[in-house]
């Protein structure tokens, strides 16, 4: 998009504009998502508890309820305890929001459509998601109250330990796809729903559920929401918070819920690919992330985004369902679930999937992946030879045609406009710098 703009604008401005547009899109998604989620939560909770939930505000279904809540929260007085640490107390909620929001930057929404497409996007997402815990911990500590402190410490313990099985679960699709590029992983599941990684082999099927558990825990939703266990700690880490800051916490929480469920759908449930490859039949879908712009592909991608968001919402709905169905665990039960069940199962499935891939290269249901780089990658992994390094090079630059496209841009960027060259070198990491690609030759 940036290079398209840079024909009309200064490259740097074009770059700025691109960035801002991306940011705004994501922010819109996040904000709207939160609004809808809060409403959903209320309705679902109500239904599950055999109530109606909000009904009046905004006519039917109380669909404006969240707005009303927002107004209430915004107008609430924002208090701060006397012996709280002022800076941290103020900062804590926003850290969480930033963390959960920043993850969306590298999240691909459709074929090749990501704000910043990175070759290690999944890894980045996990990493940044891990930062969210700081908000809770700092909040817990900074508000200078025992309840909050306990909440924070629980959160620290829980999140740090749940990152292990979560990472292991994520490792399984990564291993099968042979890349950490979410875009590639999603592209790999193109076609019929039998291509979805959850149906790749029994182990991935198990891992999917383990992943759901760990994700629920790592965004500390019920039944793992010990950081805010109102029965023991008044409200956990946000006991002392009120008003906007309090609501920011919840925006963060809902964001991360949406994120993990979208991640789940990309990793296991085919991402933006529907159960039936309609657009592939129609032949209008983008071949790969590096395909040139086409309206058909654009259309397909729009539907893909809708598809992905739908799956994400479904995942969130499931989380709410779980929350309002299951009782809350004790802290030791939480820890046991993590260390004694999730981690071993994830390890076992990781090994199992590895053996499976070795036994049936290309999978049983899963057809040979459309993503060219992947196969080369694991080939490269298995044969550590000199030409294997070139394999790396190719896999890092995704396809040959991408290479040509990019070289053109490099040529453009030679005329002292680094700004223009920036975004696409970020978008499709396909800049064939000889030094960077052929790591073996220098």
């Amino acid at each position, binding site marked *: 998009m940036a290079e398209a703009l840079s024909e009309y604008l*200064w*490259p*740097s*401005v074009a*770059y700025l504009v691109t960035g801002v547009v991306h940011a705004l899109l994501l922010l819109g998604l996040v904000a709207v998502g939160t609004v809808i989620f809060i409403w959903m939560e209320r309705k679902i909770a109500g239904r599950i508890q055999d109530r109606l939930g909000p009904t009046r505000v905004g006519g039917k279904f109380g669909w404006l309820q969240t707005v009303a809540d927002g107004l209430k929260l915004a107008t609430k007085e924002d208090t701060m305890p006397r012996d709280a*640490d002022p800076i*941290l107390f103020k900062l804590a909620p926003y850290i969480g929001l930033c963390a959960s929001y920043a993850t969306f930057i590298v999240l691909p929404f459709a074929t090749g459509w990501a704000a910043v497409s*990175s*070759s*290690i996007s999944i*890894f*980045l997402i*996990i*990493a*940044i998601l*891990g*930062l969210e*815990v*700081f908000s809770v*911990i*700092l909040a*817990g*500590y*900074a508000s200078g109250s025992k309840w909050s402190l306990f909440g*924070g*410490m629980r959160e*620290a*313990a829980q*999140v*740090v330990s749940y*990152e292990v099985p979560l990472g292991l679960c994520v490792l399984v699709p990564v291993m099968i796809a042979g*890349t*950490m590029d979410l875009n590639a992983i999603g592209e790999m599941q193109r076609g019929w729903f039998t291509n979805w990684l959850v149906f790749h082999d029994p182990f991935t099927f198990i891992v999917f559920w383990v992943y759901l558990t760990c994700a629920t825990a790592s965004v500390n939703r019920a039944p793992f929401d010990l950081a805010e266990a109102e029965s023991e700690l008044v409200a956990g880490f946000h006991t002392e918070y009120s008003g906007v800051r309090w609501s920011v916490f919840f925006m963060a929480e809902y964001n991360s819920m949406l994120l993990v469920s979208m991640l789940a759908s990309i990793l296991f449930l085919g991402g933006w690919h529907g159960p039936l490859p309609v657009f592939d039949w129609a032949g209008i879908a983008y071949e790969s992330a590096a395909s040139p712009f086409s309206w058909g592909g654009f259309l397909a991608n729009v539907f893909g985004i809708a598809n992905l968001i739908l799956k994400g919402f479904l995942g969130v709905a499931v989380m709410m369902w779980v929350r309002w169905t299951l009782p809350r665990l004790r802290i030791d039960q939480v820890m046991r679930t993590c260390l004694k069940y999730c981690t071993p199962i994830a390890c076992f499935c990781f090994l199992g999937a590895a053996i499976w891939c070795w036994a049936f290269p290309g999978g049983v249901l899963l057809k040979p992946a459309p993503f060219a780089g992947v196969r080369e*990658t694991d080939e*490269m*992994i298995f044969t*550590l030879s000199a030409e*294997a*390094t070139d394999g*790396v*090079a190719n*896999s*890092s630059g995704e396809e040959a045609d991408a290479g040509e496209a990019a070289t053109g841009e*490099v040529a453009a*960027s*030679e005329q002292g*406009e*680094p*700004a223009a*060259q*920036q975004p696409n*070198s*970020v978008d499709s*990491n396909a*800049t064939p*710098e000889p030094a*960077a690609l052929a*790591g*073996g030759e*220098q």
Partner: protein
Amino acid sequence: MEGVNWHSFYFLLFGMTACVFAVAVVLTGSIVRMAFYLTLCLGATAGLFFLAGAGFVGAMQLLIYVGGTLVLLIFGVMLTAQGPFVSMKTRAGEWVVGGVVGAMLLGLLLQAAFRVDDWMGPDPGVASAAMEKTPPGELGIRLLGKPGDNEQAVGFESGYLLPFEIVSVHLLVVLIGSAYLARTKRRRRATDAAEAEES
């Protein structure tokens, strides 16, 4: 406006953040704020890694360091930060000595950093867009034992396989060891209380 080299811009941004919060870590008295500043500082360092083309290392930094190690640190801070220990005043003299020595070291390092003009950066014409130039697979096969880049590296034919294995074993040992320490601590608490009463 078009002259802006965004790479340099980002470098300034992250570098400044890193330096500022590093200094803040030194200057602040509250241990918890130290931890918080350290977090930001290291996060900025991760950004610098990205700028230097080491995307994977940057992500690692975020995941392990910021997400793991520092959380652990803060955890420890919470366990130990009570009343008098939140801020332990250091005598002015020590400040002075530390400052002087630090300044000497800083001067040394800086003049070492800026004396080689090959390091001063590429020629202005060349675009220095270095985000994530190294594919992670490269690191992977290097860890799996592909020999190093320069063929004349003697005794290094097996790449980083051995260090990799050693590190993994070391991690396991650390896991067990720290778990053990934590366990013994709990057992000894009763006797400690008794001693405290006596003394």
